[in-house]
């Protein structure tokens, strides 16, 4: 992101543009924190609506655990790793934080993982994609809950290579997430006999993508791999349509959220392949959750918002099972238990911290196929968790190959 004087000034004026209420450290409470992008480019992916999902989970659980009231703290990390890490540290030191949910942005979550290791507070990564969180950057307290770059690449890239898209050119967001996503997709493409023609690294939040797109077109590749997210993804796809690039190249959304498709409209996004952990219209359970969520937020939930709900429930179930909020006991229970709820069936947390669950390769419907509001995806393939997240790499010292 550009060095934005806005954000700097806001930070100087006081980091606490934060709706959370300070709560004194108390043993009669269980404190769940949520640090996320609440005001920037990723704010609709989880953001304030994600907090609502967390509150829904707490209400569904009964509002208390072990006879203790469950409270939620929230903060806006403004996509700055230092803000995320220092807020996490503050809550761990002063507010008796028991669990942190990490929202969007891989960079911020890597910084927060370091704090989790030192403070011994479980960190559930909901929003970030970077698979390094369960590899080089793994900790004993990390759970990567919703999706990662490996699963996205295994889903979308495999589907496209197998349907004939053999040569790839990438438009990559120039930070940890984009480069990890491109690396994962490149590996998948090569494994399946395709080839990687080239890539251009685009600064985060670029105002115009057309120059980069013409470079992609000049490469002669068949597939335009979009290794970016949020507004960057939407604006690059919009420009690709406008310049007629989608006529000669097949666009691949390596990460797209339901909200992105909603903004772009089906006219622009139709035919796109993407991979998601969850979709609101999969089965009666997902629809029931979506209906309740919609009543509060007036939007259908994204996979991150559903994931935040599920992660909160999962943590509370583990606390209840061990009758303690001791981090080590809870983590041991988490890595033993099976996760069954509207988010996933038979999910489990591996030694490296990756939550292994089914993922779905989707194709965006054509406008005439969409029968009701938010009817956007059709399932191309359901991948098992093992297929999606791949084997343990051995890069995380906690998990042997």
């Amino acid at each position, binding site marked *: *992101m*550009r*060095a*934005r*004087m*806005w954000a700097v*000034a*806001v930070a100087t004026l006081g980091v606490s543009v934060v709706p959370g209420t300070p709560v004194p450290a108390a043993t009669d409470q269980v404190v769940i924190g949520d640090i996320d992008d609440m*005001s*920037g*480019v*990723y*704010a*609709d992916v989880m*953001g304030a609506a994600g907090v609502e999902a967390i509150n829904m989970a707490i209400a569904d659980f009964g509002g208390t655990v072990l006879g203790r009231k469950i409270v939620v703290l929230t903060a806006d990390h403004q996509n700055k790793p230092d803000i995320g890490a220092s807020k996490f540290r503050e809550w761990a030191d002063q507010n008796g934080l028991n669990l942190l949910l990490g929202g969007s942005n891989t960079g911020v979550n890597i910084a927060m993982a370091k704090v989790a290791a030192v403070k011994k507070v479980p960190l559930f990564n909901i929003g970030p994609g970077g698979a390094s969180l369960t590899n080089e950057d793994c900790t004993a307290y990390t759970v990567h809950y919703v999706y990662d770059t490996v699963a996205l690449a295994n889903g979308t890239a495999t589907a496209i290579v197998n349907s004939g898209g053999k040569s790839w050119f990438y438009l990559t967001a*120039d930070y940890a997430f984009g480069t990890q996503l491109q690396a994962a997709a490149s590996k998948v493409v090569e494994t399946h006999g395709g080839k990687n023609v080239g890539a*251009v*690294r*685009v*600064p985060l*939040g*670029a*105002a*115009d993508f*057309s*120059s*980069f797109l*013409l*470079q992609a077109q*000049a490469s002669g590749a068949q597939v335009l791999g979009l290794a970016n997210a*949020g*507004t960057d993804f*939407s*604006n690059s796809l*919009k*420009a690709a349509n*406008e*310049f*007629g690039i989608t006529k000669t190249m097949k666009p691949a959304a390596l990460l797209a959220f339901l*909200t*992105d498709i*909603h*903004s*772009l*409209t089906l006219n*622009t996004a139709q035919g796109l392949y993407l991979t998601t952990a969850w979709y609101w219209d999969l089965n009666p359970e997902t629809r029931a959750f979506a209906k309740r969520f919609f009543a509060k937020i007036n*939007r259908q939930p994204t996979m991150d918002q559903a994931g935040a709900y599920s992660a909160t429930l999962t943590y509370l179930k583990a606390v209840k099972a061990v009758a303690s909020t001791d981090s080590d006991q809870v983590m041991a229970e988490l890595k033993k238990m099976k996760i069954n709820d509207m988010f996933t069936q038979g999910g489990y947390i591996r030694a490296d911290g990756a939550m292994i669950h089914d993922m779905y390769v989707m194709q965006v419907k054509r406008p005439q196929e969409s029968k009701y509001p938010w009817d956007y995806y059709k399932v191309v393939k359901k991948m098992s968790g093992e297929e999606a997240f791949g084997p343990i790499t051995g890069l995380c010292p906690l998990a042997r190959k």
Partner: protein
Amino acid sequence: MLARRIGRVAAHGCSAPVTEIFGIPVAVILGQLTLGLVNGSFYAMLSLGLAVIFGLMGVVNFAHGAFYTLGAFAALLGLQYCGINYWAALVLAPLAVGLIGVVVERLLLRRLYGLDPLYGLLLTFGLALIVEGSLHQVFGATGQSYPVPQSLAGALNLHFMFLPLYRAWVILASVVVCFSTWFVIERTRLGATLRAATENAPLLQAFGVNVPLLKATTYGGGVALAALAGVLASPVVLVNSHMGNSLVIVVFAVVVIGGMGSILGAIVSGLVLGVVEGFTKVIYPEASNIVVFVIMALVLILRPAGLFGKE
């Protein structure tokens, strides 16, 4: 090396077209030049508004990006709720936003004249945060699509690239608007009066000119230009609450490079920097979002008043 390349081209005679310059295909160069001009058009229109406001009023208008965003939202909401089409929005949105500008000037900015320019900067910065925060609260972060008007759909075949008709229109519209603004300020009696108001407001007032009205109109006009740029941008990018704040910093750099307050400087440096940025996207894409600031630093060292500014 260049000589050798040119020699090779010459040896091939006229029938062989030049295909590469410095190892970059000519088609790519022409393509980036065109796209650079499109982006430069936005820079030029935005920096022009800033330069007018600073040059004639001495206000560093940090809310410029917010007014640009408001322009885009005015077009979007006008279409969604009142069925106002693109062409009408091109006129109505800048008018509406310009009117907001006049109100801001009358109610707030005018109280700060005569104080350190820093106060105006802080006020407009605060306004920008309020506007963007409110839009974010109501419309969320992801943004919405504004359709390209039917008559500008499709593309021109320039042989080296397909240029969407709409982008060609952006260049045309921006050049016309920029140079007419320049003409009005530098070459007409109204412009002369405006400039006189900056030189010596009390004297001008003594001649019976309504200076406060003049200043309000200037600010309204400046932000209307920003809103117009916002309407022009709305079919190209997703309309969202953040669209202005990533641009406004670049545009400030453009104004500094052109020379604070220089109208022609803002227009020319806007267009040129758009092109420079375009080429950076080919040669070293990672640097494309800082190249403007590097140039700004160089200009400040070598020619502190800017390329077109008066020492």
